[in-house]
């Protein structure tokens, strides 16, 4: 008796692939997304194993080798594959080490704005009379201020540094999560399943976090990926304005900040950190596109 039922079960699973498998099929159809994923895996690998991957200590100053060009150019040294910077530090090692920081900033600022953003958005959606409009006005105010200036001001208040950079970026990107969550919640609230849960006597917290929230996650995940990439850009912009993380920690944007002086003499100091930022952000955005297609077909055509 039991054998046929298991056979049926196997058949069922063949007919209805698991959500993960379905997701992966949709995702892998997008070649760009896969390429982005592969690149990100490389970056994450570098970030995790930075001390072992990097050929040199990123802070070690080889003062006899200031501004050595990349190895393939005239005057290049094989030991400094991508050349050295103005203090004779190995550029490749700094880029590898820098991936740690950039990913950390991206990840932590996303988490730090995602959680309060979702909470505020949920409250705004569930209490449309007084709390909702108040929260939304607050978000309007933040959106009206140029985000970079807001971030600069926040960093100026808290003082530059890794954590404060993260806080500044998290605050600046908060409104988009709140708006998105609220919009999604408002859409879901009129659905039958929510009414059913209400009638079944579900309490407010349960309604909020267990009934409604999981159904709003798809756009949020997409938004999180996108803001992950913009966090890396914002951190780099702050670093470029001289308000980023503290030296000698190599951060991609900070590496660019002083590079402007070498624009005529040492193009590698200017080009390579920026190229790294561009490629990583591009990879994340490609992944974000793939995620969107896979998770939320409705959003497929949005920019």
């Amino acid at each position, binding site marked *: 008796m039991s054998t046929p039922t298991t056979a049926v079960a196997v058949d069922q699973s063949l007919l209805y692939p698991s959500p993960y498998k379905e997701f992966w099929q949709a995702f892998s159809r997008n070649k760009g997304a896969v390429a982005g994923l592969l690149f990100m895996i490389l970056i994450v690998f570098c970030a995790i194993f930075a001390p072992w991957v990097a050929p040199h200590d990123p*802070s*070690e*100053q080889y*003062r006899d080798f*200031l501004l050595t060009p990349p190895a393939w150019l005239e005057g290049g040294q094989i030991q400094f594959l991508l050349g050295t910077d*103005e*203090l004779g530090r190995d550029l490749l090692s700094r880029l590898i080490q820098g991936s740690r920081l950039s990913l950390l900033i991206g990840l932590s600022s996303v988490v730090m704005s995602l959680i309060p953003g979702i909470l505020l958005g949920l409250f705004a959606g569930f209490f449309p009379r007084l709390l909702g409009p108040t929260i939304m006005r607050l978000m309007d105010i933040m959106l009206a201020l140029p985000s970079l200036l807001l971030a600069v001001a926040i960093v*100026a208040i808290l*003082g*530059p*540094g890794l954590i404060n950079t993260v806080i500044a970026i998290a605050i600046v990107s908060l409104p988009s999560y709140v708006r998105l969550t609220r919009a999604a919640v408002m859409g879901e609230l009129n659905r039958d399943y929510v009414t059913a849960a209400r009638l079944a006597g579900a309490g407010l917290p349960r309604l909020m976090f267990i009934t409604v929230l999981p159904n709003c996650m798809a756009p949020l995940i997409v938004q999180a990926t996108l803001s992950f990439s913009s966090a890396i850009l914002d951190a780099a912009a702050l670093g470029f304005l*001289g*308000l980023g993380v*503290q*030296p*000698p920690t190599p951060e991609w944007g900070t590496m660019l900040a*002083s590079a*402007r*002086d070498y*624009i*005529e*003499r040492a193009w590698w100091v200017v080009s390579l950190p920026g190229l790294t930022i561009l490629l990583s952000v591009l990879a994340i955005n490609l992944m974000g596109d793939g995620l969107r297609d896979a998770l939320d077909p409705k959003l497929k055509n949005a920019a």
Partner: protein
Amino acid sequence: MNMIPLRAAIAAALLSVAVGATAKPLVVCTEASPEGFDMVQYTTAVTADAVAETIFNRLADFKPGTTEVIPALAESWDISDDGLTYTFHLRKGVKFHTTDYFKPTRDMNADDVVWSFQRQLDPNHPWHKLSSVGFPYFESMGFKELLKNVEKVDEHTVKFTLTRREAPFLADIAMAFSSIYPAEYADQLLKANKTGDLNSKPIGTGPFVFQRYNKDAQVRFKANPDYFRGKPPADALVLAIATDNNVRMQKLKTNECQIALYPKPDDIPSIKKDPNLKVTELDAMTVSYTAMNTSHKYMSDVRVRKAIDLAFDKEAYVNALFGKGNATVAVNPYPPTLLGFNHDLKNPTRDLDKARQLLKEAGVPEGTVFTLFTRNGGGPTNPNPMLGAQMMQADLAKVGIKVDIRVMEWGEMLKRAKNGEHDMVSAGWAGDNGDPDNFLTPMLSCEAAKNGENYARWCNEKFQALLDQARATVNPEERAKLYEQAQVLFNQDQPWISMAHTRMFTAMRNNVEGYVISPLTTNNFATTQVK
């Protein structure tokens, strides 16, 4: 038949007239916008260049390229034997600028001088309260306490009475905050209730007449035909604002400007190689240093401060930041060009073992963390503070000290450093009158230690006594001796690591003549022209 060539000839003639009328101005690429044009309200060197050196004159001037004081609006002066009374005899027939917003009816006289000083001195002066932040330079130079009175003796004689003897007084009188304003213009503005115009439509006696200021872009002047030293050779002067030094260099290369101020030391070799360009240079009166907070644990121990000095590679620092030959390694708190520089003092050779030994004796454990405050943007004394800080960090790591670099925005760093929150802070100073006291008192006196501007918070009574004595001494040789002794005390106690004295550069086109670089970091174009 002749019509066409004739028309062409007329057109050409007209064209040449037009070109003649708008003769090519002398364009100078400078690093920042002037804050405003009412000189005495501001303190920055950029404002001094754009206002005090162009529009205004003072009773005395610095002889171009030196720190020697020479007559200007005052033809001569007498100093009383007790050194407390200075009588200035004014030059006759000096005219204020005539513009479309002001036509002077009289020449410059004693009233103008009295007005210019009483405005800053006398709290009851009608213009005194009009400056919302007061008269920062006048006040920070201690003139409020120093000047007892400024009075008119006759039309062309003014008497200054001081409360104490002050050796650098004549040099102070030649500084930007002592600029002479037209009292007549001020009265007109006050009557018309347009006092703000003093700041936006300035009038002076200087070599150039103000024409227009496009904020953050350019300031335009035309030559003053009545200038008392003769009309400047350049018919028009444009100060073009380009914050980035790479941009200034590019504009110089394309001949968009003929003079570029503050080129980056790195660029000097390539400018020297360029056949169209040249550089004038001079040892600047600057010092960059790292002050060690002597009120903090460990740092209060002179052995620790000596050890840090021994561990830091000053040569490498100067080479990386400025390039070889573009700055000299500092020994004393002020540069060798100034009075009383002690040439006997030398930096010890870098010695990591000895440094480690000293730290051990002082009981500093391995891995002790010291904070180093630094600012996020470069200035004239330190083109790249972050770079310097990272070198310090790498050097001290070799003797087991961890340096925690705190990069701060300028305003915040000042605040925190004055509060004494730092272990070390990198700072710099550009002297503004060529007097050693102008270095030592603001940065190393006991009073400055109290209010925090002495970032080392170092107060040595013997040192202070020497400073006080030197201030009251008029004879230069005696003063020099006192300063030499003071430097010995300074080096024994090592409140700072004196890092570098910069060389100053001005880059220009080959055909620029008559520009004299000044050790006071001011730039004057009254004698400059493009050949």
